């Protein structure tokens, strides 16, 4: 998906206050998150929001790849699954200290994505979509078949350790705690991505996205920034995988499946992949529509399909894009 540099990104240098405003907005969002436990009526509502945020993180990961690299991935769930499986398998087998397991579960997918990024960043367009799909499915097939790793197809439940960083780990499965934690992480991730887009390396990545040859002529290495973007995107997906695995105490091959990648991509597109915040908005919207449409659950994929077709045809910049257009017209 080719994107052009957003106006906000190009004027970043002349207006340092924009960064301050971003940080301010993030602080406000964090404060709002802290009040959520009093705003939501039930534990079920909190649990729903927590799970919606896991989706939002994965969608943000896919969207970031589109935003900064101009590459559409159909296999981002691979890193979601890799994060979840790393923590699940390491904790269940008690191989390393649980704190170290979390670090491994975040670093391993990032490293894998960086190395893969060096290779697949050369492939563009439709071939890239098919290649990422194939890579993601290869991971799925491995965990599906490898019964000794985590019971293959059945998936595996695991017990959280007693303590994590000196705090009782069972709190992670409390909806209140997980909701606030996931919300805070999402806000921090979005802030970091928005700041990245304004940073020097982020601007170089955007320049490469818009015209790789030109960036190379200007003397920039194009491989490393691209691979870095893959790594960051995978890191975000891995966070979502770790949170989801810890919260549910369960891992299954479906975490890797291409339908998970596809849905994440759909959420990103519906929300608006040309905005840092768009994918997260799309994910949370879609999650609540799904919950609302509970009685039609068996037709859910078709509903998503229709929403996707309608959104791509009528609002190519997604929901956030539509809101932004309406907003700028009014002001």
């Amino acid at each position: 998906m080719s994107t052009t540099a957003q106006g906000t990104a190009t004027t970043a240098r002349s207006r340092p206050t924009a960064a301050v405003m971003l940080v301010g907005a993030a602080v406000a969002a964090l404060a709002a998150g802290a009040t959520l436990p009093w705003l939501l009526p039930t534990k079920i509502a909190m649990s729903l929001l927590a799970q919606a945020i896991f989706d939002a993180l994965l969608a943000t990961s896919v969207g970031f790849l589109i935003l900064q690299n101009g590459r559409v991935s159909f296999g981002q769930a691979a890193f979601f699954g890799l994060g979840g499986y790393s923590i699940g398998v390491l904790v269940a087998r008690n191989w390393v200290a649980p704190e170290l397991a979390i670090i491994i579960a975040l670093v391993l997918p990032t490293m894998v994505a960086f190395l893969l990024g060096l290779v697949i960043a050369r492939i563009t367009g439709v071939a890239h979509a098919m290649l990422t799909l194939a890579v993601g499915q290869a991971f799925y097939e491995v965990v599906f078949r490898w019964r000794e790793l985590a019971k293959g197809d059945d998936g595996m439940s695991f017990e959280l350790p007693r303590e994590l960083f000196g705090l009782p780990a069972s709190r992670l499965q409390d909806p209140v705690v997980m909701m606030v934690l996931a919300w805070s992480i999402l806000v921090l991730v979005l802030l970091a991505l928005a700041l990245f887009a304004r940073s020097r390396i982020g601007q170089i990545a955007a320049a490469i996205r818009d015209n790789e040859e030109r960036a190379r002529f200007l003397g920039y290495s194009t491989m490393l920034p691209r691979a870095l973007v893959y790594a960051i995107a995978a890191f975000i997906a891995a966070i979502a995988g770790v949170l989801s695995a810890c919260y549910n105490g369960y891992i299954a091959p479906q975490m890797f499946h291409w339908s998970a990648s596809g849905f994440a991509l759909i959420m990103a597109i519906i929300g608006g992949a040309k905005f840092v915040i768009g994918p997260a908005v799309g994910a949370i919207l879609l999650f609540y529509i799904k919950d609302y449409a509970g009685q039609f659950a068996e037709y859910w994929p078709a509903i998503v399909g229709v929403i996707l077709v309608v959104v791509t045809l009528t609002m190519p910049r997604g929901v956030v894009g539509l809101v932004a257009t309406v907003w700028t017209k009014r002001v």
Partner: protein
Amino acid sequence: MFIQVLNGIVYGGLLYLLAVGLVLIFGLREVVNFAHGSLFMVGAYLGFTIASMGYWWGGLLVSVVGMGMVGCTLDALIFRTLRKQDHMITVLVTFGLLLILETAVTAIWGKAYLTYPVPRLLDGTIGIADTPFPIYRLFVIGVSVAVAVSLSVWLRYTRTGLYIRAASTDARVTAMQGINVDRLSLIVVGLGTALAGVSGVVAGPLLSLSPTMGNYILIDSFIVVVIGGLGSFAGAFVAALLIGQIHNFGAVYLPWASTVLPFLLMVAILIWRPTGFAGSRT
């Protein structure tokens, strides 16, 4: 051993029927049709409905004609409307179609696995190298070879075929020469989808019918298209045979790795040649 090779050719033939449809559509519209696997599945269910009434060949006919019409509609309504947009948008729309078709088929025929009958004419086995081999599998090979031969003759020796080859190389320049690319595309997308219908019906008795039957084979045919080189007919043919053999020998000799082998091959080939065996575009 020889039987193994034959079985590999059977699966390769099915993959070819799907992959060549993808290549045809990609050539003109530069879009990879993610709904192709679901169209294959819908074709199988259509054929099944007629075949279970006792008209196996009628099922094949209905499926081919019906899917051809679906393909023409798809081209006229979606591919033509979106041709000026980013191609990735169209790809996403076909992904949405995949979800819609799968749900629709689940709603109509249910999730349960269904068994597609074998036509009476082709029931039974024949001895090959002292081993009984189902006649039906030979029929599958026959269909794929017949499609491959007639398609290459059509593309090579007719005027329409010439136009299609030209448009697959460069649709814009072809249009400048006064050729109606939209009408060509209608034919090509219709034909590609009809071939998905053929392979759906032909694969029916080999695989069991389920709303997700198209997904696995779609990914395999993606691998075929990418390995063969996007937009290359000959490349797709060779790659389909190759993946068919790998699929089959992998299942026999390396069962733990069999499903991953095609993926690894695809990654390796793309690293070595980013455009695939015979392709020149990305």
